[in-house]
């Protein structure tokens, strides 16, 4: 059985249908890339999977870890091991990063029946994982994402991923706005956390990130549907030819 099984998923914003029947199965140990032109629904898919209340699911099913994902509250989906690296991480003034991530880690532990980490254990873990993404000490003491640069926000997302050790990570355009050094740091972090039990969905426009995080499967999402699924060689093909041939195949050009 797959870690994530999406069947015929339809979702709306208001009355507008954005996802129009998505099918996708992800097994432990796999990295799936989802590519596709702007506005095709990639962020919507990640929002629906994580339970963002702005979106309404109108049809279909999603199983995660053998559980009915769509029935779970967003925080429980997270505690079950689903993690989203946001395309646009929000700022939370006044809430220190340390306090925030400690709350998150301990909530997850509570859900799994484990005791809260002691301050020492927590700080040790935090130091390790922070180094992994070369996150400045000062950032950890600041308010969540407040005044962070674009690159710092993305690294901070991967830092949180490292702290929460998710089963499924969804990286939504984590590469956008990153220079090549930051990109390598982020990729290093993701690869370091990769093992045979967990899986990732990497949403991106460009080949760049996928040179560092090598996917097992590549999908093209277009107009709310997955219209192509191939191996990693598809990345190079898209890079070379752009999306027009896909649009043409779909009868849109």
């Amino acid at each position: 059985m797959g870690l994530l099984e999406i069947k015929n998923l339809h979702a709306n914003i208001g009355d507008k249908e954005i996802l129009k029947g998505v099918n996708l199965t992800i097994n432990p140990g796999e990295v799936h890339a989802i590519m596709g032109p702007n506005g095709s629904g990639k962020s919507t898919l990640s929002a629906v999977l994580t339970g963002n209340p702005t979106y309404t699911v109108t049809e279909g099913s999603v199983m995660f870890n053998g559980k009915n994902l769509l029935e779970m509250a967003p925080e429980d989906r997270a505690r079950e091991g689903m993690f989203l690296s946001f395309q646009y991480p929000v700022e939370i003034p006044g809430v220190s990063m340390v306090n925030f991530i400690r709350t998150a880690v301990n909530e997850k532990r509570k859900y799994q029946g484990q005791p809260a980490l002691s301050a020492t254990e927590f700080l040790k873990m935090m130091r390790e994982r922070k180094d992994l993404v070369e996150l400045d000490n000062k950032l950890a003491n600041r308010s969540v994402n407040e005044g962070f640069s674009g690159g710092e926000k993305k690294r901070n997302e991967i830092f949180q991923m490292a702290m929460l050790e998710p089963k499924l990570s969804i990286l939504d355009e984590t590469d956008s706005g990153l220079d090549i050094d930051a990109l390598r740091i982020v990729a290093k972090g993701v690869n370091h956390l990769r093992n045979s039990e967990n899986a990732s969905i990497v949403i991106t426009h460009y080949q760049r990130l996928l040179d560092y995080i090598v996917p097992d499967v590549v999908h093209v999402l277009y107009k709310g549907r997955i219209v192509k699924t191939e191996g990693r060689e598809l990345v190079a093909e898209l890079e070379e030819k752009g999306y027009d041939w896909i649009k043409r195949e779909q009868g849109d050009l």
Partner: protein
Amino acid sequence: MAEQEENIVEQVTNQEYKYGFVTDIDADTIPQGLNEDIIRLISEKKNEPDWLLEFRLKAFRHWQTLEMPNWAHIDMPEIDFQSIYYYSAPKSKTNKTDANGIDPELNKTFDKLGIPLYERAQLSGMAVDAVMDSVSVKTTFKEQLAELGIIFCSISSAVKDYPDLVRKYLGTVVPYTDNFFAALNSAVFSDGSFVYIPKGVRCPMELSSYFRINAAKTGQFERTLIVADDDSYVSYLEGCTAPQRDEAQMHAAIVEIVAHDRAEIKYSTVQNWYPGDKDGKGGIYNCVTKRAICKGDSSKISWTQVETGSAITWKYPSCILAGDNSVGEFYSVAVTNNYQQADTGTKMIHLGKNTKSRIVSKGISAGKSQNSYRGEVRVVPKASNSRNFSQCDSLLLGDKCGAHTFPYIQVDNETSVVQHEATTSKVDEDQIFYCNQRGISTEDAVGLIVNGYAKEVINKLPMEFAVEAQKLLAVSLENSVG
């Protein structure tokens, strides 16, 4: 999205009040209503000297000429002052007290509230004056403080034991003519705390008063007087709770503070009177006059308040900066939820030269509540080179609540600078979802966000109080966001 916000609001607005229990104890209560005989009776019960009875009667006669103020942004129902009991002293059922002179039933009550009445049970150095209804139940660490010359006792005992001190200061900062509620308090005040710190003494522990209303239909009218002599320091804390009752109850206190040359006083309040139920039934009407005077040069007074309770709050802790180079501060977090109404703020009156004041007010409104900041900054002609900085922020949860700011600024000399900043923001659902996605529930997320917002003020509280205040903020807003 509007629907979503509504859910958010609904969740945060179904709070539970944890201190709503009633202690089953007999009380020595006098007849209900207010007239000169009642005032004589109160004075007699307390064995007061004539001068104090005179003070009360003068205040009462003045009060009769006054009308309840209606300028605040508050919808206050008509109050029948004749239906209130003005004196209620808890009385032991068994007449048994333990070795420490404490009635076991009362001890149980304060224990439940987390207020230890036994000195050895105290975890940290904090002396407590516990007041239930009209009388002080117990003051801890009195003897230890007395060795340093510090007086910390109920105001009733102070009237007996230190009449000259009380007489010298009582009513000098808040005269009974000040306002309607001040006149009422001056006529009927029952108990409260008295603090005197002698010259050059730093009070080695936090002094704290805990006020509890227990009896039904009783008003609480406590009165606190704090005097810090030259070069002294004290940090004072005030906490309060009341049972959950359907009918509203009146609380009209006075706090007077005097700081002499180079003295420093920190006064912190965590106000958690019963706020009424989620439909706005019952609750405490908290109409309080708090004022401090920096009498001496280079003295400093700072008010910190975390206001989460009461159906109605009408309260403006103020500083009169009379001494040159004196400093006044006001840090406030006021949370309103459901149908609560708060009109609160401060006055900074700059009389001396080079005086400085700082105001940081954080209003948090949820449910259908109304939350107003009202503040006055006045700089008189001779208060040259004075400075004020005011920061008034409002945070809204949902769209059925109201936040208002009423600053009054008057500067009468050209060398002084007054600066006022104000912001209004909303708890954003993207912030909540971000927390959810990290495994943090909406309730906890609101708690985190609100505490983050109020951090600058909370950080001014003594450590233990800060932790309590953080929990209280989260609890007050439970279920207001979904």
